[in-house]
């Protein structure tokens, strides 16, 4: 017994870890994102892991929040499946704040989880940034976190992934806080108010209210990028015109890595939402600069470039000056797919009513969570079922006196009681037959009495019209 007693230590460790894993996995503790230091990224890693287990990964999308919000991998997967006549699966691995240097790191993480056939960079054309890595950037956080030691070593990364995915490790901070403080110390972030679907798309239904302000911001985006002089620019000058050395190095390494993995590189030219709203930009210098930007990038990466100059997104598809919402993401995705596949999609004619024009600034039944939804109500589908985001950043809803409200084209509201039908899921019955048929409506969740209703923080995760 003495001889084997030493093995008690590792045995007890394994036993305790096994027990603790089992117990902790049953608790609804959130992850603190301690492996990468970026909670939303760790959530994506988990989703991608699950996604890859369900089938082959045809494409992985990388980019910043512009792609995170503004590209629909789900829609793209469906369009490509239909076009190719076989299942096609794309995952949105975009992360807020990501630059080319970050995208390289993200790819290194993703290739350990699953091999993809195509890397699609969904990027805006933007001004040349500094060569210094900002302390607020995901790169800096990744380097400081445990994952930073393993990014250049796939084997170590795999080992780390296995260890840090264990519930006792992943949820340890939450367990510790519960033991020490009786509550979590985790502070909710903005990203916690958006749901991410199984394709990795971050879903937002919010829409811009002030078109005029957005148009003025559009001028700033146009002015921030300028073309190089074709006559006295060699290939290196062209690169340096748009990219700092760190990005040039990252593109080189990404190209090498993709080649080694046998993965195709593609670029979808995206942009800040302000550059798409209502009408495409017709500024010649801007269009030239944008074109040059993506051509230089594509050349450096050895990538296929898919670029459409006349992408236009109506205002109901724009969240704010930088990001599209879910509607805008679908519209962008449809148009870029059309450009790539050279096929024409028969877009449904949606009567645009600019539903946000009638919002008064002091109308307390509107807040930043007011959502634009498609109007698919019909005789057999007059119940609107809404699921709201359930996270630490969203306060609990009141138990009673909740209402659904839809803003109509005449500026009036239809307000009906909201009935809870499930976890964070409510339903409301509407009869819109006597109202003009419009494409989109503005939805809010209200709380209060009949004479004193106000909108509450209620980010919408998903909705559908049901019987």
């Amino acid at each position, binding site marked *: 017994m003495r001889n084997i007693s*030493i093995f008690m*230590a590792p045995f007890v460790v394994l036993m*305790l870890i096994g027990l*603790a894993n089992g117990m902790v996995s049953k608790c609804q503790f959130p992850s603190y994102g301690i492996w990468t230091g970026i909670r939303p990224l760790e959530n994506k890693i988990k989703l991608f892991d699950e996604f890859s287990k369900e089938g082959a990964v045809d494409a992985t999308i990388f980019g910043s929040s512009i792609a995170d919000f503004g590209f629909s991998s789900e829609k793209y997967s469906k369009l490509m499946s239909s076009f190719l006549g076989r299942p096609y699966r794309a995952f949105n691995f975009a992360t807020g704040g990501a630059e080319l240097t970050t995208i390289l790191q993200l790819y290194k993480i993703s290739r350990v989880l699953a091999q993809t056939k195509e890397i699609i960079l969904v990027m805006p054309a933007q001004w040349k940034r500094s060569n210094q890595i900002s302390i607020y950037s995901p790169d800096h956080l990744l380097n400081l976190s445990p994952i930073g030691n393993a990014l250049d070593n796939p084997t170590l990364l795999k080992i780390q992934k296995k260890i840090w995915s264990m519930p006792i490790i992943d949820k340890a901070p939450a367990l510790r806080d519960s033991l020490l*403080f*009786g509550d979590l110390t985790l502070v909710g972030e903005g990203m916690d108010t958006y749901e991410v679907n199984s394709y990795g798309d971050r879903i937002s239904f919010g829409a811009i209210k002030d078109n005029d302000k957005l148009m003025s911001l559009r001028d700033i985006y146009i002015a921030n990028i300028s073309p190089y002089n074709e006559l006295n620019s060699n290939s290196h000058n062209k690169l340096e015109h748009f990219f700092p050395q760190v990005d040039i190095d990252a593109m080189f390494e990404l190209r090498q890595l993709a080649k080694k993995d046998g993965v195709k590189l593609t670029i979808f030219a995206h942009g800040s939402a302000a550059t798409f709203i209502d009408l495409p930009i017709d500024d010649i210098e801007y269009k030239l600069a944008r074109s040059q930007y993506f051509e230089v990038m594509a050349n450096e990466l050895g990538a296929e470039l898919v670029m459409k100059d006349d992408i236009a997104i109506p205002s109901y598809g724009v969240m704010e000056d930088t990001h599209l919402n879910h509607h805008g993401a679908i519209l962008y995705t449809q148009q870029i797919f059309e450009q790539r596949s050279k096929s024409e999609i028969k877009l449904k004619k949606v009567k645009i009513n600019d539903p946000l024009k009638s919002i008064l600034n002091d109308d307390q039944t509107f807040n930043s969570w007011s959502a634009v939804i498609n109007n698919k109500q019909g005789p057999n589908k007059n119940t609107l079922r809404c699921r709201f985001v359930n996270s630490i950043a969203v306060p609990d809803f009141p138990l009673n006196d909740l209402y659904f409200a839809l803003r109509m084209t005449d500026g009036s509201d239809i307000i009906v009681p909201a009935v809870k039908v499930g976890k964070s899921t409510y339903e409301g019955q509407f009869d819109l037959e006597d109202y003009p048929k419009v494409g989109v409506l503005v939805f809010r969740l209200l709380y209060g009495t009949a004479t004193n209703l106000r909108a509450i923080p209620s980010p919408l995760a998903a909705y559908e019209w049901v019987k």
Partner: protein
Amino acid sequence: MLFHTLTFLIFFIVFCMFYFSARGNATRIATLLVFSNIFYGWWDWRYLALLWLTIIVDYFVANAMGKTDSQRDRKFLIIISIATNLLILAVFKYFNFFISSFETVGIEVSNWYLRELLLPVGLSFYTFVSISYTVDVYRKKQKPVKNILEYAAFVCYFPQLVAGPIERVGHLLPQIITPLKPTRERVSDGLFLFSLGFFQKSLADTFAELVNPIFNDLAIASPEQVVFSIFGFGLQIYMDFSGYTNMARGVSKVIGIELMINFKTPYFSLSPREFWRRWHISLSTWLRDYLYISLGGSRKGLPRHLRNLVITMILGGLWHGAGFNFIIWGALHGLYLSVDTMIEHRLTIRPYLSENVKRLKLVLSGLITFLVINYTWLYFRCETFSDAMLANQKIILWLNQPLFPEIYPGILGLVLVVIMMDIITRFHEENDYKKPFELTAAFAIIQNSASGILFVAGLVFLLGVPTQQFIYFQF
């Protein structure tokens, strides 16, 4: 690399594979030397140059001293050794501090700062290890080490290289040359010590998470927050340093080498003098043997005795950091030791004190010692003198109106855990240190189960807390 990381675990496993399969002493020592240099160079390979400068200078100085009986020559050689080590310390640790001292008296010296100067990890520790060796050779207490690889392995020995204990050549080198066999008892003890240290480090980081926001913004902290954060920091530094030492001792024990005990339940001390027999023992004994005794110790009357105590502690404070706060910290400890010495001096001439008075004195002594020692941590923790003064103002405000901050039951639980660990250690110390250790089956199961529990508990507490560098790494 830190002990409580995956990188170190991989390093240690690979090291053990090579070390335990090495044939012959020479190969084993060479293996230890190589891996120790890898360990140290992991922080920054440039640090190795300074380390080897110290090793080479002191090796040759000591051997030269061994070849001559001329006191004049030996003195010259020891001055070379001490000067080299202190010069390295002076340049890398104290140069910018001395320059800033000129600025405080109005002399413009902004161009004199050595910018971008690296402070090598463990500099203060290995220079003191080296100085102790050459001084022992000078005093003829130690024969020079003939084999430079053996000497280098002693200085570079990785478990103690960057944060002590400050070992003596007579204690460590024989074990490096002929280590003890890794028996079940030793491995069991080593695992336990490592797990205990790991758990202590997790507690330290937890306490740090609580007190750092207070010390980082003293201006807006309430008086009660400041007061209790000082005690919180006292717990943090104890757990941090004791935790590191236990991990180092545990790792070393598995190799078959016993490092000295560096902490013996210091917060249960009944006097400042006892505190320094129980806190950072390797440093306090080094200061006693190489500074205090060199100054004359207690040999030349009470006034000189007290002077030597104060000088020793001020320099001890300066060893911890290049800053006026550390000087104040040292001076306070010097003052405490002096007062303690004077009280003891007076009490010895009054043997007729009753038992009750003696018992009351013990309790009061223990309480006062705990309070005054923790007060000095204020200067240790505050980054600037003005911060320390601001904290003192808050203490005064608190004394006028003592309030208690809200303390979560979980935190109180952790404090109780620390106290219980110390009580158990103290009990073990007073009852078992006298007996040779024997691993019975039951004890082995309990100890190794405890190792497992401590490790998992440490893991839970450590993860998610911003990893704190070991406090003593900055020295």
